[in-house]
């Protein structure tokens, strides 16, 4: 078996004239809790569905465990894809749906799934149509987690869950991952909540991967300086600035590994220096500067 869970080379997927994924090249090694981060419409769901063989690619190459996933049972048997609003037969009871998963997923742990139902206060005899959005999210999360597939993909799994349930879900996910290590990809907009459990981050924007790496390395990969504009400008000259704002004070985010030397120099320049939270970094890397446009929203046309 390939050492890589996922390999994509120049992958593309078009919906009619719209390109959802373009020139997507990445190698994701086996193992890890990977956060798939990106803005709305950045191609997260399309990428996951391509990996799950739910969509046919338009171009390039995609391999999961060294093989193309589309229509390939050997690959598809080892992965599970779920999202918050999975479409099940609405009349089915939760226990019946668990039974369906148990029929087809060879590693599905039904006992574990039933315990999780109890843990999250879901009654096995409830029908799927009776679930609220949050409850459906929890249930789909439980089903996918209990599959213990080598590649487990959660697409916005916590949508609709309240904060308590979300935290419990993250805890369960981390614990189960520790017990049964595998490759877990989880897409969410709530990176701040999840960064404590993630090992890696894959950031995509406009259908392309922007960065992929270990979350600790990511934390070290950039830093923020804040102070007088002249000092900020002088300090950041010749460096890769990924965010810049001149307000009451001036701040800049510089893509460079923060070390002691930099800290010392920044201090000498009268600048405050700190790490950038991964969530902020993702925003800076994927957001175009629209501050000017914001002002336009309230301007009256003559």
């Amino acid at each position, binding site marked *: 078996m390939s050492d890589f869970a996922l390999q994509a080379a120049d992958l593309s997927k078009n*919906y009619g004239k719209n390109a959802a994924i373009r020139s997507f090249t990445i190698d994701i090694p086996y193992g890890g809790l990977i956060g798939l981060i990106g803005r709305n419409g950045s191609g997260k769901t399309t990428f996951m569905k391509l990996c799950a063989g739910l969509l046919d690619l338009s171009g390039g190459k995609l391999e999961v465990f060294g093989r193309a996933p589309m229509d390939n*049972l050997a690959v598809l048997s080892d992965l599970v894809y779920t999202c918050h609003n999975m*479409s099940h037969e609405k009349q089915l009871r939760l226990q019946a749906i668990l039974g369906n998963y148990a*029929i087809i997923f060879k590693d599905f742990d039904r006992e574990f799934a039933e315990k999780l139902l109890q843990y999250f206060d879901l009654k096995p005899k409830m029908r799927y149509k009776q679930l609220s959005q949050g409850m459906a999210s929890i249930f789909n999360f439980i089903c996918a987690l209990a599959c213990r597939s080598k590649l487990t993909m959660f697409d916005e799994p916590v949508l609709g869950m309240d904060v308590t349930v979300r935290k419990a879900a993250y805890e369960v996910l981390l614990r189960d991952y520790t017990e049964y290590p595998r490759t877990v990809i989880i897409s969410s907009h709530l990176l701040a909540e999840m960064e404590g459990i993630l090992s890696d981050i894959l950031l995509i924007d406009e259908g392309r991967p922007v960065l992929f790496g270990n979350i600790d390395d990511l934390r070290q990969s950039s830093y923020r300086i804040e102070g007088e504009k002249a000092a900020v400008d002088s300090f950041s000259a010749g460096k890769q600035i990924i965010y810049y704002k001149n307000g009451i004070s001036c701040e800049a985010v510089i893509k460079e590994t923060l070390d002691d030397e930099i800290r010392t120099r920044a201090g000498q320049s009268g600048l405050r220096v700190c790490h950038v939270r991964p969530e902020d970094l993702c925003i800076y890397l994927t957001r175009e500067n629209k501050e000017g446009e914001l002002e336009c929203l309230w301007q009256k046309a003559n």
Partner: protein
Amino acid sequence: MFMAKSELKNAGQLTRIKLKSAKFNILSTFIVMAAIFLTNLIPSLIHMLKVSDALNSYRLPDFSGWFLVGILLANVIWSCIERITNHNFAMYPQTNSSRFLSTQALYYSWILLTAALLLAMYLIQSGIMAIIATAHKNIYLVYKFDPAFIISGFLVLIIYASIIAGFISLVTALIHKFKIYAVGVFAAMAGFFIADPLLVIKFIQSVSGFLILEPGVLFFIFKGLIFWAALFALSFIVNKSTVYYKSSLRLSNDITAGIAAACLIAIFAFGSVALILAPSMEQSAVVAQEEYPAGPVSKQLEFDISALPKGSSIDIITGGDIGFIANPGKVTSSGSDNAGRFYIYEDGTREEYPEEYLVLEYYDQMSNIDGDRLIIYYTLPLNIEDSQNIGRLIKPDFKARLEGNTLYLDYTYEKNVKAVFLPIWSFMGQFVYFKDRGITKESFFRSYSGCGGSISLRIE
């Protein structure tokens, strides 16, 4: 060759899941069928137990016609929404082939289960009617219960239903594969149909004639299985070479194509299916009940035969189920050319032919008759329904007695007689073996004919 073992196993697992998920729909079908069954049976039973002087015939509907219509419609609808319903199973690992096979397995399981229910309903109905007929001597079951017919009909039904499903699967697979081109071809076929329906129906008849005209059950099953296997194999091959997955679905396009395909399939299938189904549909009234005119339970006719020479003999011929003697022809008396013919019509045609009702026609003068024999013909009234003479059930009887110079003709029959038709497998008329044994009717169409009984006197 076409599928790995793991794919077959996967298809089996998907089938189990789909059957579990479809149980509500299957159950709904059963409930609807049972409700229709009861709403036909109960009013019929109530009516049947009412006293009536007439000869009543009851026809409980044969649901097998509806069954084939249902199979056709359900398959067309399923084909249209298949890719939408695939969403419900998208989370499970599958391939094009295993998904196709599992869907087909679901279809055929549904067909088999529904056909089994149909059979069960017939058996229940027959059982109830048999008990009632045993308890009430005036209630008769017209058709014999024949296990060989029941089993053969069940198999033939499955074959017909499978061919319908196989045909629709093939059309659907072609549409999925060739998309707009396939729709174009079927649209052109529909155009032909609209332009010259007779030509298309003739074509369909000639294509399907090898099946729908096959008179032998075993040959039919053999041919049907081969035909179905060919349809299935073609669908499978076309489907296997088609790359589509549920998330590729562009819903609006698919629904439009699906509706177009449904219309085309329906038009195309209409010609052949209508041939089989129209009569069955006709029979599916809630209570298909015919009431024949009551007439007198007993009729006594007096006739003065004083003109007959003494010693004349009188022959009475009764009970002949020989049809209506419309014209006995010229009768020549042994002693004279002045023969006399007397017609007395005693039948149920008063409404239709009032002038012939109980008319005594007298030819020549009785006084001139010098023959020595009086022959009385009596013909049973006939009520033929689907080739079965239910007129015999009223057990008409005719007696003649002579008192002095008066000839009394007594005509009696049983009243409050109920003839119950429990038709099943109306499409079995093509099979000579059963047709010849009177177990099923000859034609799909419901037929009536008959005439009143007649009494005629012939004096020789």
